[in-house]
C-alpha cells in the first residue's frame, strides 16, 4: 500500500511493512526538454549517531562515496541528467547491518550546481523520491519534488530512525539553502 507523503508526515515502516529489513530510496526525474544546463539531481544519505551528526566523514554516502564501510548503505551511482526510466539514482539500505551506534539515517536530495545553473525542483519535470520495500518491491511511500518543493534547491527528504526495536520513517521535507555543502556541514561532515 503506497502512502503519499506530505511534509512532516510520519509513517511507521514497521506498520506499513512489518519485518522490514531492506529499503530502497529511489530518486527519479525527467531529462530536461528545454535548452539550458542539465538537471543533475543527487541523492545522499547521512548515517547519524544519537548526536544527530555523522560519526565520521565516511558516514556521508553520496556520488563520491558510494558504500558505507559496514555495507549497510549502498548508492547506485551518479545520474547527471535524469536519463532512463524509473529511479535514476537509488540508495539501498540493509537495516539489519546498520551499526548499533547509528540512530538515524537522513536522506537528502540536492540539485548539483543549483546556484550557478539557477535551477530549483519546480523547473524539473516529474521529480520524485520514493521508498520501496526491497523484499517484495512494494512502494511504501512517494514524495513529489516538482510539485511540493518547487522553489527549493536542496532538501532533507526523510529520516529512518530507531525507535526501540523497530525503524520508523519520518518525512521531513525541509528545504535547505545553499545546496549539498551546507547541508552536509550541518550534519557534521568536514568539507
Amino acid at each position, binding site marked *: 500500500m503506497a502512502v503519499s507523503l506530505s511534509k512532516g508526515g510520519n509513517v511507521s515502516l514497521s506498520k506499513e511493512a512489518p519485518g522490514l529489513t531492506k529499503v530502497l530510496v529511489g530518486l527519479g526525474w525527467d531529462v530536461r526538454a528545454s535548452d*539550458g544546463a542539465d538537471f543533475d539531481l543527487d541523492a545522499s544519505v547521512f548515517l547519524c549517531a544519537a548526536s544527530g551528526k555523522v560519526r565520521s566523514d565516511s558516514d556521508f554516502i553520496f556520488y*563520491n562515496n558510494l558504500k558505507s564501510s559496514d555495507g549497510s548503505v549502498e548508492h547506485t551511482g551518479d545520474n*547527471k541528467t535524469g536519463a532512463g526510466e524509473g529511479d535514476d539514482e537509488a540508495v539501498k539500505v540493509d537495516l539489519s547491518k546498520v551499526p548499533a551506534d547509528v540512530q538515524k539515517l537522513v536522506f537528502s536530495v540536492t540539485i548539483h550546481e543549483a546556484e550557478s545553473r539557477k535551477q530549483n525542483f*519546480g*523547473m524539473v519535470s516529474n521529480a520524485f523520491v520514493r521508498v520501496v520495500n526491497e523484499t517484495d518491491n512494494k512502494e511504501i511511500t512517494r514524495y513529489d519534488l516538482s510539485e511540493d518543493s518547487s522553489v527549493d534547491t536542496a532538501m532533507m527528504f526523510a529520516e529512518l530512525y530507531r525507535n526501540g526495536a523497530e525503524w520508523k520513517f519520518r518525512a521531513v521535507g525541509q528545504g535547505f539553502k545553499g545546496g549539498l555543502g551546507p547541508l552536509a556541514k550541518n550534519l557534521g561532515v568536514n568539507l
Partner: protein
Amino acid sequence: MQTLARGQKGKLADLGSTDNVEIAIQVSGKSPSALDVSCFGLDGDGKLSDDRYFIFFNQKDSPEGALKMQGGKYGAEESFGVALSKLPGTIKRMVFTVALDGAGTMSDLGPCYVDIVIGGTSAARYAFSGADFGQEKALMMFELYFKDMWRYSAVGQGFNGGLSALLKNFGGEELSPAGAAKPAAAPPPAAAPPPAAAPAAAAGAPKVSLSKVTLDKKGGKVSLIKGGAGQQQPIHVNLNWDNPNAGKKVGLFGLGGAAPPPDLDLGCFWRLTNGDKGVIQPLGNKFGSRHAEPFIYLDKDDRTGASSDGENLFIMRPDLIDMVVVFAMVYEGTANFGNVKGRLTLKNGSQEIFVPLNSPDSRLTFCAICVIKKNGNEVEITKEERYFPGHPECDAVYGFGFRWVAGSK
C-alpha cells in the same frame, strides 16, 4: 498579489479560483524582431494533438470558446481568458509562450511578467527579463495544468531553436528549413507567426541573406546562396562543443583533480569535380591547403572545447567541390557525443546554417555531420548526423574508396 519565482508551482484554488481566470502577459524587448505570444492547449501527454487549441493571432478562440486570446488588458500587452470548466477533458495543460520571429534572443527582453488575474485583480505575478535567459528564441513562460486539480507553474524555460523547437517539443509539425518555404494556407502550426525569415532558394540575381537556418532533422537541406556575380563564396565551417567535465573532479572525494575535457576533431572527406580526393583532419597532420588544391584547410586543433572558437575548417572554392563529408571525432577525454552537445555552424557570406547534433549516439566516436554536394548549378548542404565506429565504416557508406591505416597525434 503573490510574487512567483521561476519554477514555482501552486494550486489555482489557493489563489481564489477554480474556474474562470485570465492570464495577462506583458512582454517587451530591445530585439528588432516581433515578439509573438501564443497559447498551446495540450493533452495529457503534453502534446498538441488538436491544432484547434493552438491559440495565436490567426486563431483566437478554441472551438467552444473556453480559451480565448483577448488582446491587451489590465495594462499588459496581451491577455487570455480561460474558462476551465468549459474546456474539454482532453486538454490538460495550457502553455503560454512567446517566440521571436527573426534576429535577437530572449536575452534582449526588457521587464516582462505573466499575471494570473481573478475577478479583475492580479492574484499572482511571475516577473522575468532578458537577464534570466541566453540564446533562447522561444519561451514557455507560464502554464496552467491539471493534476488532481488545476495548478499553475512559472515555467521560464525555452528553446534556442525558436518556434520550430517549441512545436517539436509539443509533438507538432516542425517548420521546414529555408529552401522549402511553406505556403500561408498550411495547417495552423506551420502558419504560425512566420518562421525565421526563409530566403528564396538562390537562383539568378544574388540576394543578401540575413537568415540563420537550423537544420534540425536529418535529411534537412539548404542551398548555399551565391555572392555577387553569381559566384560561390568561401564556407567557414565551425565545430564547437561543451565541456561536460567543467567543474567536475575525479577520484574519492574529488581529490583526483579536474576531469579531462573532451577532445573533438573536425575533418572532412573531399572529392573535387576533377576526381581528386583526400581527407583533412588533425590526425596525421592533414591540415589541407588554402592556396592550392583542394583549397580546403583546417585552422587549428582545439583539444579542449573550452575555446570559444572551437575548430574551424575553410572551404575556399565550393565551386570546385563534387562532394565533401564533414565529420567530427571524439578523440580523448571521458566524454562522448551524448554529453558534449556538439554543433556545427556553416557561414557562407551572410548566410548562417546551424547544424546541432541533437540525436547523439554515445557509443560511437565518429560522426558524419553533413554532406556538401554539387547539385547542378547549386551547392547543397544536407544534414546527415550519422554515427560510425570509425573512418572506414563512414567511407564505406559515402563511397570515397580510401585506404585506411591506424594513426595517432
